[in-house]
């Protein structure tokens, strides 16, 4: 009997060993797969178990977290949601994250490895890291000016600090309040359904994710290429261009919306936005140099992140001469985001240097110490400094005497360029109205701000759309920047 008791005991030991082995299998070997299973809610619970880090504008948090006491505990809140939605994006428990909430999610949600207070111990103790904050480069006054200017409109605005590439304002209209999307209830899904079904697409960030034909504002790039390539040496010399201009190799005749463009000098042509002159200049410069200059400004560069990705602005390179002529006045396949056109204005303002724009000044740990700071970014020379000086003069003329009069600010030097871009089948759509500009206070050493505005729903008739509509919005934003005494310190 003893032997059989031992056998039975051995059997029970076997059962125990099987349990232990299986537990090790489940808890150690297969654990990573189970943790990654989409039906496992633990990662979500952990993610929302603590307040999310905040996004700061002008030293103040524009986001917050609300303790709902639900299973997914903290929900995102937004102070002034629609004002900053084109920057913050949303952080939803149902629909994920977008824009800054997405690009800086690791810092905000506290999964960034550098947030560990005591690196090795924190991993061992499984203590969740508290989320860090994201300090933006935005100027709240400029952002508010953009918000007010674009209220009730459809369009976008981007404003940069030319000397650094800091983004001072970034707005897209119509905007939306991201807060109703934060939770996980029916309210969130209703808001989502409403926003996604809206024909005006309020969640589309037109300033960085939408490209438009830049129209006449692209003439800045064409002028830069012509000056750099030596096609034009004297701003006031006649350019030997007919009006109307027959596109090379075709019978299509290009006309102007203003008079006196035949043989106009570059200064006149720029001030009154002569299509014929710039189309011919583009052809004279040639596809190679035009492409090189456009690329130097940032066209055809698909990898821009500010830190969320920016849509690629394009300048078509496989062109015949007629297409090159049209491309040189910002039509045909030339397309640009408002941010790209702000970069063009900033390059003119900053001696021909193009800087990668950025939106995040620095990220901080919960205590306030810096986690990562936006270092100095490499600058790219898009045109020679002398060309930039001459273009500044051209743009100032356009504001003083030409199409951009409504952008003038007392006590400041302002340079600008209007644009009207036709689009749609047979140019049937409401033309897009552009205004691209920069401003420098009279007592300041260098321009403080460069702005690009686009309106999809320009109101007045074709002749004088842009100056009348988009320029005041740009003016308000530039004024706000010039008036803000203190610049957010760049560290």
């Amino acid at each position, binding site marked *: 009997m003893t032997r059989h008791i031992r056998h039975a005991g051995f059997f029970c030991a076997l059962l*125990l060993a099987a349990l232990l082995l299986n537990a090790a299998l489940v808890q150690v070997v297969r654990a990573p797969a189970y943790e990654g299973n989409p039906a496992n809610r633990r990662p979500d619970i952990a993610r929302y178990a603590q307040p999310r880090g905040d996004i700061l504008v002008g030293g103040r948090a524009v986001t917050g977290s609300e303790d709902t006491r639900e299973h997914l505990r903290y929900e995102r809140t937004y102070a002034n949601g629609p004002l900053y939605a084109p920057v913050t994006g949303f952080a939803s428990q149902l629909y994920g994250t977008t824009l800054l909430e997405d690009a800086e999610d690791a810092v905000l949600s506290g999964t960034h490895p550098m947030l560990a207070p005591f690196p090795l111990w924190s991993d061992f103790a499984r203590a969740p890291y508290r989320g860090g904050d994201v300090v933006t480069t935005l100027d709240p006054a400029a952002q508010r000016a953009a918000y007010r200017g674009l209220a009730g409109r459809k369009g976008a605005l981007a404003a940069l600090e030319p000397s650094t590439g800091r983004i001072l304002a970034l707005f897209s209209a119509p905007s939306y309040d991201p807060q109703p999307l934060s939770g996980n209830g029916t309210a969130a899904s209703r808001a989502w359904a409403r926003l996604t079904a809206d024909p005006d697409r309020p969640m589309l960030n037109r300033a960085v994710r939408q490209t438009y034909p830049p129209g006449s504002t692209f003439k800045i790039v064409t002028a830069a290429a012509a000056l750099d390539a030596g096609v034009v040496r004297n701003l006031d010399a006649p350019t030997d261009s007919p009006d109307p201009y027959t596109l090379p190799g075709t019978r299509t005749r290009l006309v102007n919306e203003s008079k006196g463009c035949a043989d106009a000098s570059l200064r006149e042509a720029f001030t009154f936005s002569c299509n014929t002159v710039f189309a011919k200049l583009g052809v004279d410069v040639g596809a190679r140099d035009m492409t090189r200059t456009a690329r130097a400004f940032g066209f055809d560069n698909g990898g821009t992140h500010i830190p969320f990705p920016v849509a690629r602005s394009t300048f078509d390179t496989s062109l015949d001469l007629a297409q090159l002529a049209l491309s040189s006045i910002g039509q045909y396949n030339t397309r640009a985001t408002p941010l790209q056109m702000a970069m063009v204005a900033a390059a003119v303002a900053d001696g021909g240097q193009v800087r990668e724009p950025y939106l995040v000044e620095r990220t901080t740990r919960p205590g306030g110490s810096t986690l990562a700071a936006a270092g100095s970014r490499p600058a790219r020379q898009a045109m020679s400094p002398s060309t930039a000086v001459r273009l500044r003069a051209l743009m100032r003329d356009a504001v003083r005497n030409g199409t951009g009069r409504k952008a003038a600010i007392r006590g400041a030097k302002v340079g600008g360029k209007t644009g009207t871009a036709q689009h749609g089948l047979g140019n049937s759509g409401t033309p897009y109205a552009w205004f691209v500009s920069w401003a420098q206070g009279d007592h300041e050493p260098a321009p403080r701000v460069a702005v690009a505005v686009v309106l999809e729903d320009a109101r007045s008739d074709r002749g004088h759309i842009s100056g009348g509509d988009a320029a005041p919005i740009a003016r308000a934003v530039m004024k706000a920047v010039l008036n803000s005494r203190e610049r957010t310190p760049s560290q």
Partner: protein
Amino acid sequence: MSNAGITVATADPPAPAARHLPRRRGVELALIVLAVLLSVYGYCAVGLAQHGTLPPGAAGYGAGLGVLALLAHLAVRLRAPYADPLPLPIGVLLNGVGLVLIYRLDLETPGDRAAPAQLIWSTLGVALFILVVLLLRDHRVLQRYAYVCVVAALALLTLPILFPAVNGARIWIRIAGFSIQPGEFAKVLLAVFFAAYLAANRSALAYTGRRVWKLQLPTGRVLGPIVAVWLVSVCVLVLERDLGTSLLFFGLFVVLLYVATGRTGWIAVGLLLAALGAVAVGRLEPHVHSRIETWRHPFSSIEAGEGANQLAQSLFAFAEGGVLGTGLGLGHSVLIGFAVKSDFILATAGEELGFAGLSAIFLLYGLLVERGFRAGLALREPFGRLLAVGLASLVSLQVFVIAGGVTGLIPLTGMAMPFLAQGGSSVVTNWAIVALLVRVSDSARRQHDGQDAR
């Protein structure tokens, strides 16, 4: 055992020849103190993790558990001074950990508090332990009541059929707000009956009857009653849809038959019958069929877009625990939902204490079972040996069936994790098992003559 075991009780061995083993009551007391302290520590850890403060009832909880354990210890000291010092502290620790886990889950389900009732049942359980240790002076007395036991067991098993089904199984009876699972008590009674009957008839079972091929079949007259009892109990349980318990009884029956007769053939026959029965039930009974399907594909409901089922949630909980666990009060095993405090209580232990804690719990059970087998080996009369082995096997099989079920090793059958799970009948029964083991081990060690019986 060389003597023919047809006699009901073997005589006591001559006492003077026996060399008394050390009593080890001090060790038991120290271990009990440790067990109580560990439980109180767990209780405090839950409070700290959930609210950042010590839970208000910590002192009372510790004192209550301590007094209960102390009373049980005194009873052992008084009436079973030679008892094995391990079973009682193991029972206290497992019961204490169970209370901590249930209290911890209560915090997530404010509308449904189970810990107070569990505390009352634990008190009743310890009271039963004390009663058994005090009143049952010699376990061999039980042998006389074998047939009383079997009648009581069958009555208890059939009783719930008269009551309405709860969650699809007719295994509960509800009296005055308490739900009682009579099948739990039947476990011990059946173990006593099997042990007594087999001890009395083991020679007849082993050596008489016809021989068919290599298998020695016992006479129907001897085998009949026990097979009848077993069949009735299993059939009742199948009717009540309590498959875990029927599996448990079957395992107990086969183990005791093997230990009593030493016939390997019985194991073969038992396993064959079990396999046939399992296939038949799995095919015919949709409830069981779905359990088997869930076991084979725990994530099929996720792929079907219906979300994670209980087993998947349980596996997620175990996986989250990893090696060291999330810490008491910091897991999310409450996602399992229904039965998280009873059948799935182990998932909470696995998530919050990790593989380390889970292994410790398994090893505690293993130790309890091992002490049972030790007592069985040390005793010299067949009834005591079979009783000790039967009780130890009961614990072992029950732990395997439910722990294997919630960790995905075998198909899930609803059953209570001994001592840990919410369920009064189960706690009381397990205290009775520990009491009997203490009693049996006391006899074994009191008579010890320096070598195991042959």
